[in-house]
């Protein structure tokens, strides 16, 4: 254990067999990785490597983009469909070599182009890392807490919506149905928590790792159904070999990139070729749907503008209050209690720091894979395993909840005002706004 981790980097650097080894490690770390020989052929643009590289690209990209499916997709089985899919995805990621897109969809030549595209994806999307997380095996409990957050945002295809006019009652029915689902979800979640806790409680002391201390559901299932748990063991084993290969690859990666440099040297940049451009571009891009993005943009812009307006108002108020306070103080006191420049600077820096962290927070994505393992620990037990405590998460969630509630109430009030204005325009209608609970 740790054999690879301790190996000094210099040792793995150059050497006659280093490159094939690195590539072999890479192919073991990726699902369906090709042999080093394929890469060598591709460097010399031999046609034998084409089919293998296309299918490699396709399977990798397909797996990655399968993650966030909204509706089940059909696997394009024909080679042509697969090639088009690969081209589409690469285009969406901004890969811009014309030569690549001009490759024929029968897969007859262009293995060097494919090698370049593959390497670009490898570096740009960090493919091996993504696959580690995509395929990680859950031994512990606790995936569900984080996954619940994803409920709110899922891109909805407009095609789901009705074509013609809509009955009000239909909408109301949907609203009611949604409420029922929330309730059910809540109920099952609570029960789930109780059951999980029971299992953790009853199996205390069974886990070989002292810092965990109890079994998780999958682990208990191993004992309960030894037959069916073989699958889990196999998965774990294959994950282990993947991880080993990944570590190996990580330590030998440099050789690969140096080699890719030589590949690029032999391959001049894309030659200007305008004749086919009109043919392939629309073909690829017709698969890219900007509608969803545009809608999202509209929504975000609306929100940001509303926020800006609100901020404008609040800042004006605050500024006025500030000036008033300063003038008041200066009237009362013989010497105006101006804030010193140093103090001001200090405050400005502190606030600037706060805002920067805020900005960084929105950049960080929570990884979808729930690697967090839920660990039960009695209240007064020392927490020595470096585990994050749920209490912290509760605090964060409470903050978020409070803020969301305020936002929602504000939106409701706005809507109420809109309605009031609207109702005033109707002749003979008395408008009685509903009382809102104000806190």
């Amino acid at each position, binding site marked *: *254990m740790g054999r690879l981790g301790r190996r000094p980097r210099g040792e793995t650097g150059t050497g006659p067999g280093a490159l094939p080894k690195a590539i072999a490690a890479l192919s073991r770390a990726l699902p369906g990785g090709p042999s080093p020989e394929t890469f060598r052929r591709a460097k010399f643009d031999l046609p034998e490597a084409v089919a293998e590289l296309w299918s490699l690209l396709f399977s990798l990209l397909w797996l*990655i983009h399968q*993650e966030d499916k909204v509706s089940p997709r059909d696997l394009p089985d024909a080679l042509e469909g697969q090639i088009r899919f690969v081209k589409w995805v690469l285009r*969406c990621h*901004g890969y*811009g*070599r*014309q030569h690549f897109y001009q490759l024929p969809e029968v897969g007859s030549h262009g293995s060097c182009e494919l090698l370049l595209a593959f390497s670009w994806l490898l570096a740009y999307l*960090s493919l091996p890392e993504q696959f*580690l997380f995509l395929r990680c095996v859950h031994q512990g409990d606790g995936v569900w807490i984080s996954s619940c*957050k994803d409920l*709110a945002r899922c891109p*909805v295809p407009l095609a789901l919506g*009705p074509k013609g*006019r*809509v009955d009000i009652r239909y909408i109301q*029915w*949907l609203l009611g149905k*949604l*409420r029922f689902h*929330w*309730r059910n*979800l809540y109920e099952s979640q609570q029960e789930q928590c109780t*059951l999980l806790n029971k*299992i953790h409680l*009853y*199996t205390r002391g*069974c886990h070989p790792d002292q810092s965990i201390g109890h079994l998780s559901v999958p682990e208990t299932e*191993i*004992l*309960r159904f030894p037959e069916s748990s073989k699958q889990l063991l196999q998965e774990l084993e294959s994950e282990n070999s993947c991880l080993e290969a990944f570590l190996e690859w990580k330590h030998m990666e440099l050789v690969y990139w140096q080699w*890719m*440099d030589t590949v690029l040297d032999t391959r001049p940049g894309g030659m200007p070729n305008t004749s086919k451009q009109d043919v392939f571009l629309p073909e690829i*891009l*017709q698969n890219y749907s*900007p509608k969803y993005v*545009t809608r*999202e943009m509209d*929504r975000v812009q609306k*929100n940001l*503008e509303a926020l800006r307006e609100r901020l404008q108002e609040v800042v004006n108020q*605050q500024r006025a*209050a500030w000036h008033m306070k300063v003038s008041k*103080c200066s009237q009362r006191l013989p010497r105006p209690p101006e804030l010193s420049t140093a103090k001001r600077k200090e405050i400005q820096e502190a*606030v600037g720091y706060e805002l920067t962290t*805020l*900005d960084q927070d929105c950049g960080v994505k929570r990884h979808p894979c729930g*690697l*967090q393992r*839920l660990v*039960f620990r009695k*209240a007064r037990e020392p927490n020595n*395993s470096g585990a994050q405590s749920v209490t912290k998460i*509760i605090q964060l*969630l409470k903050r*978020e909840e409070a803020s*969301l509630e305020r936002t929602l109430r504000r939106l409701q009030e706005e809507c109420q005002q809109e309605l009031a204005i609207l109702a005033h325009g109707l002749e003979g*209608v008395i408008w009685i706004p509903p*009382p*809102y609970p104000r806190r």
Partner: protein
Amino acid sequence: MLASFSPAPAPALHIWEKPASTHNAAGPGGAGARIRGRGSTPAGPRQFSRRAGAAGVCVLVCQLQLQLAATSPQLSLHLPPPPMAAMLPADCSRRLVAELLGALEACQKKEKDLQQSLARCRVLLQPWEVASPPSPEPAQRRDKEAACEPTPKDLKELELLTQTLEKALRVRKGIVRVQSEESVSSGKAVQPLVAAQAGPGARPRTSNPKACVPARPPATSQRASSGVKRPIRAPSHRGRAPKDALTHAKQPDHLAPLEGPAQPCPLPSQGQVPGVPTSTPVSASREVGAVASKPGPEQGKTPPDLRSEPFTLKEKGTQLQLPLLYKKIASRNSSLWAQIQHSQFDADSDVAAAKAHFLERMKKTFDMPGPAISPAEVQEEVNRLDRACHLLTQHLEETLAMSGEAAADSLSLEQEYRCLVTLEGLQATVDQHLLRLQELREAEEHWSGLGPAESPPWGLGLRVGGRGSLWNSSRLSYSSARELQTVAALSLRVAMLKQQIHLQEVRPPAPSTCVLRLAPAGSYHSDSLCPAVRARGEPDPVHTASRSVRRPLARLRWGGLGTGRLVALELWWSLRVCLWCAPGSDGGASSPAGSREPCQPCSAGALPCHPQPAL
């Protein structure tokens, strides 16, 4: 610590106490909706039937159906279809409906997953039965061993027989109890056993495996010498009072793994039932023998006894032992992950430089037309800005709440200044974000200008991964079921609020168009509506506070003034009010836990969202 959060969920939860049972919300149409559920409002059904008699109460009735579907018990109502269909134009409702459907789908999927994992947990907590665990693929195995193993039917009979015998013994136990207790405490052979198992009981986490090891030689010898007595003694142990039974029931478990392949613990009734069980020990010992012959198979490490008697996790969970093979693989797995997490590959090495160099060189060869930002990046940036907007709003709310709580005078100059600076900073950030959004829009237009915009055959989502913090696996520790429930409820609540806000945001933009485009209402006789109005205005012992509001509102709705418009208004009411007082939305400290008070917007009469005791 615990006290600080425990009261919070209670108010939020009390509305949800009632499960919606098996209800699949009644169909959108008014007619013939079969209503069932569990209700807490005795007055509900009676009132409702009276109201239902009023013909043509369209929207109200169908809302009531919706509501009562969840609340009123044993009722099967057949209502006349509402005479009027209030239609909304497509353009203003399409998005909303699509979003609603999407939300429903997400909820359903989540629910399904949850149900599955619930079922898994339940199975584990049920008694672990012997011969045929309902594992997904037990069939093959059983076929192979069917020849020498008793059939499930046999085993079931045997089990029943055992239970009966146990019961009989329990009855007899009262008499023998004192005697047997003496024999246990004085018997020499039993003594070390009791000592050995005191360890695991007291300190289960550390001493369980170790405690077994020193106990081996005496236990084995004891087993060999006292084999004959066993059938008599074991039943007497099992007949103890439940509290004792647990500790004593452990005895065979500790014996069993130590015995090795000698013999598995026999069923207590074995001696008494000559015909049936002969095959049980044979097959079981065969199994144990097979286990011993090949080192480290998966199932070998469960104490053999666990497979020969039904037991629950609660009783013997702490004695479970993970198979050696699994332990090995799992520890290797976790050490590998730890290695990956702790080595900073890209941060310090030449690899990062080489990669960057390669990407740079590749970029120079890119010769396709198009903006610098790729569509995937556009999408990710939009998501980022969305998150940013959310976080900025949160920050604003918090800043305002902080300065708003204290009286204006009590704030020090510094605090005041800090607040001002924060707000100005937020303003600047928002401006930046808007500029960025404009850039993205331009890129987006460029991309969509390149080709016809059709929906892709492979779905919508694009994902750019690999950046951001990938390696943040850790453990999440909790200290009680209550805490876990709180965190689950809160995260669900947050998700729900987000969804609500989202729906609020995508509602049709201009309500006026909806109202004006509505078809004129069908004609109503205001008389026929009277019961409804009166029912609404009836004295209400619980919610006297809101009564004054409800009555005029009822008049407004059913007063015969342009009902079509009012129906539209009602939709706006319902969108704004009714959805928003979905379960838990009034979960503040305002209403005491346990009281079933509808939240205020509902009791104001817009829509009966919750069971209203005496409408």
